[in-house]
Every structure is written in structure tokens, then in C-alpha cells.
């Protein structure tokens, strides 16, 4: 059974068709890449899946549920987490609290409980704190635990964003250009981290990436978008040799 189904997904902004009838499926545990030239509509696909944009047409189903029309936080609740191209952390919160926000829904304490703070409140908070520390340790961020997010280095910010996404306990993780701005060593580390994530947490990962080395190195399947339309899909090898893809990447200089 497939995890995520996109059917005829279309997004138009005024006269511009950003995403044009894209159909795609993602299986559980798959590491999949979404590539294409700038403006191909990759991030728009992410935004439709996560409910930031309402698709003009088409369906999205995840784990058997329809996602179209659901609010972003409801979609997050079904098990889809994401990072952003232009990093969106909570700048005034510490690294620890950034991640803790991701656990907000895991704690089912009402407003009275939050004000009066009975024993169960503290128990819950303690459990969460342990989980967060565990996650931070796993990502090598424990030293920056109490640092404000805005004071972190770029690479650390990217990793915190991933940790925060993982805090929601997702089944599918969407990564938007995770390697942007990283040097080759960092990219190498990132690739092993992504693989590790999939294996350790048993999730599917869909990533947008411009760095072909990263994409070809870790993705098991790749889908290529151009001008909003899907032009190819397959293994890295197949995609690399697809004439349409070559044309799309080179043809833009015509």
C-alpha cells in the first residue's frame, strides 16, 4: 500500500500554472528525490501537501485519508513533517524549546492542567524533556540545547529544523533543499544522516535538492518536474539518462 498519493495535483496562481496535473505515489520507507530547474514547482508541491496552499485541482491522500482542505496543523497531525527552504525556526526560542514545540500535540494537557500543573503535568513534561535530549544528542546538538535558535550557525539551524520535524513523530518527512549552503564535508554528513533517519525511525523521506551529488547519492527514486509538469520518474540511473530531463536542465539556456 502506498503512503502518499498525489493525483492530478494542479496549482494555478492567477494565469500562471505553477504545478500542472502531477500524479505521484510514495511508498512507505522510500527515500525519494524531487528535482527540477528553478521555478519548476517543487516547493509548491510541498506547500500543497502540507496544506499551506489549497490545490486548484487534484487530490492528495495520505495513509488512506484525504488531505485536501485540511489545515496545515491537521496535516502535521496525520504524520507529515517538513522543513523549509529558507529555514523557519522560532528565532526567540531556545533549541530545546524549538523542538519541544514539536511535541506540543503529544502532551494532552488542557488549559486548566497547564495553569494548575498537577503531578501528571510534570510527568509529561519530564518524559518529553528526555525524548528531546535524546533527539538532540542523536543530532549532535546537545551542546547548543539552550542557545537561542537565531544565534545558531546555518548548518545547525538546518539540523534543528529536522529535529523539530522529527519531534512530531512523522511517517513522511519532507525536506526542502536540506543541503543548501553546506560545504562538501557537511553534505556528506547530511547524506548519512538522512539515511540514518529513514532506517532508525522507519519513515519515508521526500526531498527537494539541487545538488545532484546528494540526490543521486541517496535517493532510491527520483521524480523530475519542469514548468510544473512531471517529465520523468525512476531510479537515479534512469533519470540521469532520460533525454527529457537533460533537455529540461540544459534547455533553459536556449
Amino acid at each position, binding site marked *: 500500500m502506498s503512503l502518499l498519493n498525489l493525483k492530478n495535483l494542479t496549482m494555478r496562481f492567477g494565469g500562471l500554472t505553477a504545478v500542472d496535473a502531477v500524479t505521484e505515489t510514495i511508498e512507505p520507507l522510500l527515500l525519494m528525490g524531487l528535482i527540477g530547474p528553478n521555478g519548476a514547482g517543487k516547493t509548491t508541491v510541498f506547500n500543497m501537501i502540507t496544506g499551506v496552499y489549497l490545490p486548484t485541482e487534484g487530490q492528495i491522500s495520505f495513509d488512506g485519508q484525504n488531505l485536501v482542505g485540511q489545515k496545515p*496543523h491537521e496535516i502535521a497531525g496525520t504524520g507529515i513533517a*517538513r522543513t523549509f527552504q529558507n529555514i523557519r525556526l522560532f528565532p526567540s526560542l531556545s533549541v530545546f524549546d524549538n523542538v519541544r*514545540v514539536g511535541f506540543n500535540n503529544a502532551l494532552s494537557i488542557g488549559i486548566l*492542567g497547564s495553569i494548575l500543573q498537577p503531578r501528571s503535568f510534570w510527568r509529561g513534561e519530564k518524559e518529553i524533556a528526555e525524548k528531546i535530549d535524546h533527539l538532540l544528542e542523536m543530532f549532535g546538538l546537545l551542546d547548543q540545547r539552550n542557545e537561542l535558535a537565531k544565534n545558531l550557525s546555518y548548518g545547525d539551524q538546518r539540523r534543528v529544523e529536522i529535529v523539530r520535524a522529527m519531534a512530531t513523530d512523522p511517517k513522511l518527512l519532507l525536506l526542502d533543499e536540506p543541503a543548501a549552503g553546506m560545504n562538501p564535508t557537511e553534505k556528506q554528513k547530511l547524506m548519512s544522516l538522512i539515511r540514518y533517519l529513514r532506517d532508525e525511525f522507519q519513515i519515508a523521506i521526500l526531498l527537494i535538492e539541487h545538488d545532484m551529488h546528494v540526490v543521486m547519492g541517496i535517493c532510491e527514486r527520483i521524480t523530475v518536474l519542469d514548468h510544473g509538469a512531471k517529465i520523468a520518474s525512476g531510479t537515479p540511473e534512469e533519470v540521469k539518462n532520460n533525454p527529457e530531463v537533460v533537455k529540461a536542465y540544459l534547455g533553459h539556456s536556449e
Partner: protein
Amino acid sequence: MSRKHRSYLYLLIGFAAIIGLSFPFEAGLNSYDMRIVINVGISMILAASLNLINGFTGQFSLGHAGFMAIGAYTASALTTMVFGTTEGTTQELLFLVVLIAGGVSAAIAGLLIGIPSLRLKGDYLAIVTLGFGEIIRVVLQNIEPLGGSLGISGIPRYTTFIWTFGILAVLIFVTENLMRSTYGRGFLATRDDEIAAESVGVNTTKYKVTAFVVGAFFAGIAGGLYGHYNSLIRPLDFGFLKSVEIVVMVILGGMGSTWGVLLAAALLTYLPEALREVELFGIKFRDFRMTIYALSLILLMIFRPQGLLGDFNAEEFIRKIRGKPKKPATTET
């Protein structure tokens, strides 16, 4: 005492201190000074409750005086028209009842006003809340049984030092505890980045409305306290100017800094009184106070927009002067 109960301990210490202070205050202060102190307390409640909406959750509201009006009218109408003037324990109990009733009706209004905040941001929200505040004022003016433009007069004086600061202590307790829970994190996440917050499952709508409801509840109680101190309330006093005054306290204090906001509320209520007699170059301050108020507002925005204590962290400051090593603040939980 474990840290889990620390907030209760502080609340108790707070109550004890307020009761302890009330004796020298009642005995040592003349009634003018006492009135300043009570007004300071009410301002603090208003500012701290708006801080929840404006400072922590980032929802810019220019209609806080409207919530105050609803609370003041509910509480005062109940006292003058239903319960009548009472004494002793009955009075204290009924006072609590009317204050809470005022808070609840303001909270309901907060729920209604919170809803547009789901769609609007920044200055648009500010204008809508301004409109709500004005509508509340005009409607109150047109309700004859509530005294129309004259308002409700002859409200007995129930508000005391203990009531005012006791409620302030409860508000601080509620705020501090909320901010340490999922709600507080939800507020801050909503303020910092709504889209990111939604992406990790934070229902920003719920947090925005909660902030409005809790903030409005305490503003309503502040209204009840005000009515039962001032003996008369009327629609004109809950207009745009009052809302702006409260917003300025929050901004001056540094949005989201409880400590700073309380200090700013105290300063902005106390200073105009302290400066009444001050004369500079033969010009009496009191004749120019509104001009000076406006000018300082502009200068503040240009030179210190983060407020008095905007980037000041009280806990860190105290840790520094106590010479303790920096311990991770978040392990408190």
C-alpha cells in the same frame, strides 16, 4: 520544596506579602497615594493581560479597553442592580462573584474578537480590534438601563489593595505557569512563525483564541476592580485612548517581558501624578502631559523600540548578580 510546587510557593509568598504590605499601606498612605497605588495595580493587570495577547502571542490588539468595559459594566451592573450594597463576608464573596462574572463576559467577547484574528495579521488586526472597541463603546452608550452616556454611578467601593494585588498575583501565577506549558510554547511559536508552527502541528488558531480569551478575562476583572473603586463608569472612559495607553505600557515594557510590562504600567500610571507639580522653564508639566506623552511615544519608537526591558532577562540578571554559574534555564521543567 520541589520545583514542581515552586509556583504555588511563590503565589503564597505573594499573597502573604500583599496582606503584610496592606497594613502599612493602609495606615501610612493618604487616600491620594492609595488611589495611585490601586490605579497602578489595575494598570498592571491590564498591561500584563494584554501582554499575553500582544507580547507573547504576537496578536496586535487595539481594543483592550473594550474588554475592560464589558467586565466593568457586568460587574458594576450586578452589584448596583442585583445584589445591592452589602457588608462583611457577604460583600467579599459577592465581589468575587461579580468580578468573575465580569471576567467571563469579557472572555466571551474575547472569543468573538479572537475569531477575526484567525484571518488577519498586524495592522489589519489592530484596526479590527479598534473597531470592536469602538462598537462596544457606542452600544453601551445606547443602552438606557445601563445609564447611557452617564454610565453606572453610585457603585460601592469594594476594591482594596489586597483585592487588586491579589488578582495581579493570580494573573502572574497563571501567566508564568501557562508560559511554561504547551500553551506558552504554542503562543510563542505562533508569534515567531505561524507557518512553521502549523507545520509541526501547532493549532495556531486555538492558541490565538486562547490568548484572547485569557487576556480578555483578566481585562474584564480589571474593569470590575476599576468600577468598584471609582464609583462611576461610563462608556467614554473605555475608548480608543485607553486601549492605546495599555498598548503603550506593553510596548514600553518590551513585548513579552512580564517584568518589564509591569514596570512600565507602574511608571506610566505613577509618573503623570508625580510630575503634576513639576515645572520646567516656567511651564507646568500637567498642561503639557499629553503632548509630552505623544512625543515620548515617538522618540521611544525611534530610539528604543524593544521597550525598556525588551532584551533584558530578569532571571539571567539575577543569576549574574548572585554569581551562580549559568544553568540551563529549560531544565526547570
